[in-house]
Structure formats: C-alpha cells, structure tokens
C-alpha cells in the first residue's frame, strides 16, 4: 500500500505518492515550498517593520549590506535548490530506461488514451496512419502484415506490475496531449510526429488517475484514464487474460 500521507502532504494538499522517484521529488518540493513560504513571510515582516519604524535621520545607504549580501545569499540558496533539482532531473531524464523495463506504448487522441503492450516478443508491430479505424477495432492503425505486431494487445487501462521499471513511449495521433499521473509525480507531453520516452517505477498497488494536461479540444477535461498497479502475479494473470482476444483477432 502507499505510505500514509504525512502531515506536510496533507497541509499542502499533495496527493499520495506511489512511485520510486516520488519521495525524493516530494521532499525537494516541500523544501522549496517551506523556503518560499519563509521568504514570503520575511519580506512582509520587513515591509511592516520598515513602515512602522520612526523616520530615521539618514536613509539606509550601505548598498553592499542591503543589496549585494542578500543577493549573494539568495544566489547561493537558489544554486543549492537548482543543483538538487538538477540531480533529480538527471536521474529521471538524462538516461533511458533500464533494458529490462516493461515496454508500454501510450497513444493519445481526442479524447482517449490507448495503451499498447508488445506481447512476449517485446517488439511493437508497425502502425500506419492510413489504417487507423477506431470503429473497426484498430484505433492505432496496426499493420496486419507485420508479424511482430501479432502478439501486441491494446488496453484502455494502463496496467503495470509494482516495483518494476516501465518504459513508456508516448505518441499522439492528432494534437498535443499531456500525459500526467499526479500520484506518480509524472508528466510529459505526447507530441504528434514524435515518440517520447519516459520511465518510472510504480511502488504501491492501487488505482491512480491519468489526466491529460495539455489543452487538446473540447473534451480535454474528460480525457482521463486509470493506471492500475498490480502485484507481479496479478499482472501476469491480467496479461494472460488480455492477450487471448488480441491473438484471436489477428488474422
């Protein structure tokens, strides 16, 4: 199960956190929020004291203490924050997923998400835009002549095993969509014409919200899906259940 929310999480209305990289991100986010809150309070206290004080004979004039010293301090503070953030960013984005990661292709279109699993061969079959026909059960335009696509199967839910890295390849068919899972602290746009990879590791089984976070049309608000994280054995069972109809449907 996901960890019980801490007091800080509840105070800042942060949702549960069920990914491997999430706790570090949360810790950094909360650090930022507290620092910002403190600086905000400090600035206002200074304004009030400055206004309440009797008029001083001479105005403040030491530019070094009043301007450069605080700016240097702030520069140091922002550098530390930026460096911490950069470490996390590098860990999350600079390298690709582990080769053993589970491959899932996420395709956004107005206004649904489709999740395609490559099946046992771990290779996604070719897709052709001219073959796209959602009404005929081929929403992604799978090319029937491509053998590697024979064992692929498509789901409307993103189902993942817990504690295994996932490599998502994001695609969009029509307009830009934003793939976002707040509980996984994850967000990446899916851009038409590009395949963008992100990877993460869900830790706790449960159902989580997938939202679209890039304005994509009048149905943008209802372009939601569910991320279901299962234990490895449940996941295997789910895969076995799901592959059957897909196999049967393939000519």
């Amino acid at each position, binding site marked *: 199960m996901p960890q019980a929310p801490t007091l800080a999480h509840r105070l800042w209305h942060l949702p549960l956190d069920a990914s491997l990289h999430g706790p570090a991100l949360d810790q950094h986010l909360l650090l930022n929020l507290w620092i910002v809150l403190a600086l905000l309070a400090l600035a206002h206290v200074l304004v009030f004291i400055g206004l309440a004080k009797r008029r001083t004979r001479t105005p403040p004039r030491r*530019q070094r203490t*009043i301007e450069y010293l605080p700016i240097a301090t702030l520069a140091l503070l922002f550098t530390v924050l*930026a460096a911490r953030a950069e470490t996390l*960013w590098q860990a999350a984005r600079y390298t690709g997923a582990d080769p053993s990661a589970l491959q899932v292709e996420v395709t956004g279109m107005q206004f649904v998400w489709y999740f395609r699993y490559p099946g046992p061969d771990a290779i996604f079959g070719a897709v052709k835009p001219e073959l796209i026909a959602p009404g005929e059960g081929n929403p992604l335009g799978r090319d029937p002549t491509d053998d590697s696509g024979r064992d692929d199967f498509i789901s409307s839910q993103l189902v993942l095993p817990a504690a295994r890295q996932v490599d998502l390849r994001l695609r969009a068919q029509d307009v830009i969509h934003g793939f976002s899972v707040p509980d996984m602290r994850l967000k990446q746009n899916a*851009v038409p014409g590009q395949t963008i990879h992100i990877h993460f590791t869900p830790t706790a089984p449960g159902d989580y919200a997938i939202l679209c976070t890039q304005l994509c049309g009048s149905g943008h608000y209802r372009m*939601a899906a569910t991320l279901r994280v299962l234990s490895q054995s449940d996941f295997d069972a789910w895969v076995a259940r799901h592959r059957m109809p897909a196999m049967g449907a393939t000519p």
Partner: protein
Amino acid sequence: MNPPRNLAAPGSDSPTQRSAAPHPRLTHHRTIGFAYLALSATALLAGLLLSLVMRLHLAWPDWRLPLHGPVLPEEYLGAVTLHGTLMLFFVLTVAPLWGFGNLILPAQIGSRRTAFPRFNAAAFALTALALLTLLASPFVPGGTAISGWTSYPPMSAIAASGPGQALGMDVWLLSIALFALASCIAAVNMLTTILCLRCDGMVWHRLPLTVWGWFTAALLSLPAFAVLLAALLLLFCDRHLQTGFFLPATLVVNGVLIRTTTDGSPLLWLHLFWFFGHPEVYIAILPGIGLTSMVLANFARRRVFAYRLMIAVTLLIGLLGILVWGHHMFVAGLSPFAGSAFAISTMAIALPASAEVLSWLATIWGSRPRLTSAMLFALGFVSLFVAGGLTGPILAQPILDQYLHNTFFVVAHFHLIMAMAGVFGLFLATYYWFPLLADRTLNETLGRTHFFATLVGAYATFLPMHLTGLAGEPRHYAQFTGIAGPAGTLLASTMPLQRIITFAAIFLAAAQLPFLLNLCITLRSPFPSASNPWDATTMEWAPEAPSTASVPLIVHRGPSEYSLDGQNCYPQWQPLTQPEQPE
C-alpha cells in the same frame, strides 16, 4: 482652475505639435493615451466577466448562464481563450505600456510630443481594429477559438480539431497579427521618443525608473512581436496553404487523415511562440516595476535606493527575459539537456528581481511614508510581486515542473505576478497620476477601501489555487465533476477549494465597485486638485504657465531628491542652488 500643465488638454499645445501632425487633437499623445486606456477598460471588463463565468461554471457545473443556458465545454474553452488573449494583450500590454506610456512618458522626459505622432495614431487604430476583430470572434460560425492564448498546433492549425478552430481561429490570428503589427509601430515611436526627445539635462542616469521600465518594455516588444508575426504567418500557411511547418508528415484528426508536404514539428511553434510569449510577460510588468520604485521613493520622500543598480537590473531583467523561453517547454518534448540550461537562465532571473525587492524594502525602511491610496497600491504591488515571484524558482526547476506544469499552481503563479501585480500597477498609476489626467484627486477613503478589499480578494482568490494545483488539478478543465474512476476522485477532491476560490473571485470583482464609485464622484467634483499634491519630483508634474508654453523644459537633477528630513522636495525642474544639495 489651475493653469494647464505641460501635458494639459490636447490641442492647446506648442506650434511643434501642429507642424508635426495635421490633426493635433487626434494624433496628440494624450488623446491616444486616453483612447488606449478606454480600449483597455473595455477589454478588462469583458475579460473580467468571462473569468466570473468560468469560475461560476467550475464551482457549479450545472449553473445556467442567464440568457444562454448551461456552459458547454467548448464555450468554457472559448472563454479561456478570450480571457487570456484580452487580458494579456489588450489589458496588460496596452494599458501600462501604450496607455500610460502615451499619457505620461513624453512629459516625464520633458517633451511635449512623441517622435512620430501619426504612426502612433495609426498604431492605436490598428490596436482598436484588433480588439474589435477579437470581440467579433464569438459571433462567427463555430464560435471563438478554443486553443488558449498560446494556440498550440496542431490544434490551432487544423480546423477539424474542434469547434471554433475553423473561422474562430482565423479571426484570432487576424486579431493578433494586427495587434503585433500595431505594437511594433508603437514601440518604434516610444523608443525614438525616449532616445531623441529627452529635454536638456535629462541624461540617462536622471531618467525616472518608470521611463527605464517603458524603455526596456518597448525594446523587448520590437523583437518579440516581430517573431510572433513570423510565427503567425507560418501558422496561417499551415492552415490554408497545406504546408506543415508545425505539423508532422501525417496526422489523423477526427478520423481524417491529413498529410503535409513538410516534416514540421509543433515544437517549432512552441519555440517561436514562447520566444515572444515570455518577453511579453516582462513587457506587461516592467512599467509597473519602474513606477513602484518611483512612487515608493516619492512617498518615502527619499531617493530610490541603489538607483543606478536598479537601472542595470531593469535592463538585465529585459535581457534575461529573452533567454528563458524554454522553461515553458520542460515537459513539452524538449531535450532534457536544454531543460537544464533553461532552468539555469530562469533561476538567474530571480536575482535581479530580488534586487528590485531589496531596493523597495530599503527605500521605505524607516521612512514613515504617507500611506495614500497610491502608496498602498505600490506596497500591494511589492507584496504581490514577492508572493507571485517566489513560486517562479519552484517552477523553474524541471523536476518540479514535471509535477506542477499546467496545474493550477502555474495559474496561481502567473496570476499573482503578472495579472494581479500588473493590475495593481495600473491602479497605482491611476491613483498617482489622476491629478494629471483629470485635474482631480481621487477620494482617499474610497481609495483605501478599494485597496484593502482588492488585496484581500486577490490573495483569497489566488493563494488557494496553489493548493489545488499541488493536489494535481490541471488547467483548462471545463469541469471537475462527473468523471469516472480515480481521475474523477482526484478532481472532485478539489471542489471545496474551488467554491472558496469562486466566492473570493466574486468578492474581488465586487471590490472594484468602490473604485468606480470613486471615479464617478471625483470626476463630478468641482474641486481641482493641487498642482503637485504628492510633492512629486519628476518632470510630468512640472508646472507651466500658458504664456510660456513654448519655454523649453530643463532638468537640473536626478529624480526623487528630498531633504534628509523629508520636509523639502527638490523637483527635477528646480535649478540647483548651492546649500541645498541633499545627501
């Protein structure tokens, strides 16, 4: 009546004016400034009403708009688009830069005219045409565009991608193209005015910081709007000439296969648009920053602390402002390495912004200022600038943006720093310069009421948005209820806060009633204001007798010089005498 000042009624001006333009009344910068303000007020009213409709719809999705019925999702998004476009272009750019820029700037640099009055008038005409075009967009078939003020392709490039993306989008393109062209012309006029028409003695380090703000904003708007024009041209080609600068080779929109001859990328639009879009938000706020510095110093009766550093800082904010556009694209498909680079330049901009805040704090420190309405709004600007600015460094960290991008946290951030601080800058300008604009002083009691109510309303509206954003609530959602699954649970969990925000927004709108009342009362009042009621020191307040209307203005000192005890003020137009030089 006290004698007309150097920026008195249009038409009663020096011969210069007449020789420079055939219709002095129509091309006079004061006339144009007032016209710009009227245009902004119209846009502000429309944008405000739209935002209330949006808030009411979010809090009560079943609410029926009187005379209209329920708000449909595409109507909600149309309102979002119109609200953003109206507020950003026609209020926050037009009012501070072209409105007050025309009304006050020439006088503040000791000039009686602008460099190119006829071009100035043409720019206004184009801006007015742009506004009319935009306001017509809800009435075209399909309604207004729904892709937001950023108009990301492919949505903005393909008519099939939604209602309003056909004719409504073309109208939007036309409107913004007209606006961009007008802004370029107006910026040329403003830059040349500042470069060429400063009066004798108005050397660069004696310019009020307000002028530096206008100067930097005009300097930014030239390249920014020029790039926007090019981007709009390319988008137009994508829409109507089957190119694909912003489109990949194949797309399937609404079941229709679309092929283009060009392997373009939507990211190219994002780059071009944000190269314009980010400087644009600095264009909106820089005049307010400069004015706040000057007004705080005025009422603190002191010099601006670290005045020369503030000049450098203003220019530095402008320079960094054109180097940070990528921070809008951390999760948009930009290379993660580019994300790191833009994170650094964005964090860097926090430092000059902090320098401004420190200067403001030091200027008012222990000065016992007169807390007039203008001063209160300047303090409010400081407060909102800090509150909105501090979340900037959070959003500048790509890893945190990975969680916060396009949530209400961002909405809260830019509404505090740009919208609210910008509007406080406008109120500040109105209260402070009202004696120059209408020869009356606004009522102080109503002014203070207006200030406190607006400040409370602003914070009550936008602080809770940080929390809904942290809870994961995305922007541009037409409703948060009626969605199945865990997504529905997550969205519905923000509803209690949504209602609070809506109530606060209604309060914020209602808080403007004292201001309207104040305007009515003051404009009907028979009592003219004193010629320089705030003991201001900058040139726009220089008294001028009618008989000497052609006497050249001369500046003898820097702005905001006061004696140490604050008893005496030494305006810029007052010649130096030996013993009085302060500090």
